[in-house]
C-alpha cells in the first residue's frame, strides 16, 4: 500500500533526530521512493548497520508496506 513521503520522513526523524532526509518519488505514484539519509550517528558504522538503523526507524515496514524504497546513507561532509 502506498505511503506518503512525509510519513516516511517523519518515521526516520522520530528515530534519528539529527537526520537530513531527502525523499524522491521516483515514479510519481506515491509508491516507488528513493530516500537519502545523512546522520552523524552513522559515523564509523558499516553500510549494513547504517541501513539497519533506517529499517529499524521504519518499524518493520521495509520489505512489506515499503517494498520499493531505494535507500542510500551517508555521514555529514
Amino acid at each position, binding site marked *: 500500500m502506498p505511503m506518503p513521503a512525509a510519513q516516511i520522513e517523519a518515521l526516520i526523524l522520530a528515530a534519528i533526530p539529527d537526520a537530513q532526509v531527502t525523499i524522491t518519488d521516483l515514479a510519481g505514484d506515491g509508491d516507488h521512493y528513493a530516500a537519502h539519509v545523512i546522520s552523524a550517528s552513522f559515523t564509523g558504522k558499516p*553500510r*549494513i548497520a547504517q541501513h539497519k538503523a533506517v529499517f529499524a526507524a521504519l518499524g518493520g515496514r521495509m520489505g512489506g508496506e515499503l517494498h520499493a524504497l*531505494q*535507500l542510500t546513507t551517508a555521514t555529514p561532509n
Partner: protein
Amino acid sequence: MSDVQTRIADIVNSNDIVLFMKGSALFPQCGFSSRAVTILDRIGAPFHTVDVLQDPEIRAGIKEFSDWPTIPQLYVKGEFLGGSDILMEMYQAGELQALLQENGIAAQG
C-alpha cells in the same frame, strides 16, 4: 539451526558469490534484483543465483538468516554484503571490485 537455515548456510558457503533474488539472472522479476544482476554482470565475476520465488522457505528464511528485510541479498565467501542499494554504492566506489580481488575472485570484465 532449522533445516532452511542450514540449507542457506550450505549455499552461501559453497559458492564464492551468491545472489538471492526474485527471478533468474536472465529474467529478473523485480527492478532491484535486476539492478543487482546488472552490477555483477559488469564486474564479470561468475556468480550463483537463487530464485526465492521458486522456494518460499528460502524466501522467508533468508530474511532471518541475514536479519535483513528485503531481497535481493548478496553474499561473498559466506558473508552478507547487503542489498541492491549497498551493492550499487560499493560498485560505484570501486569497493566491490576491491573486495572480490582481496578474496581472490577474478573479475573478467
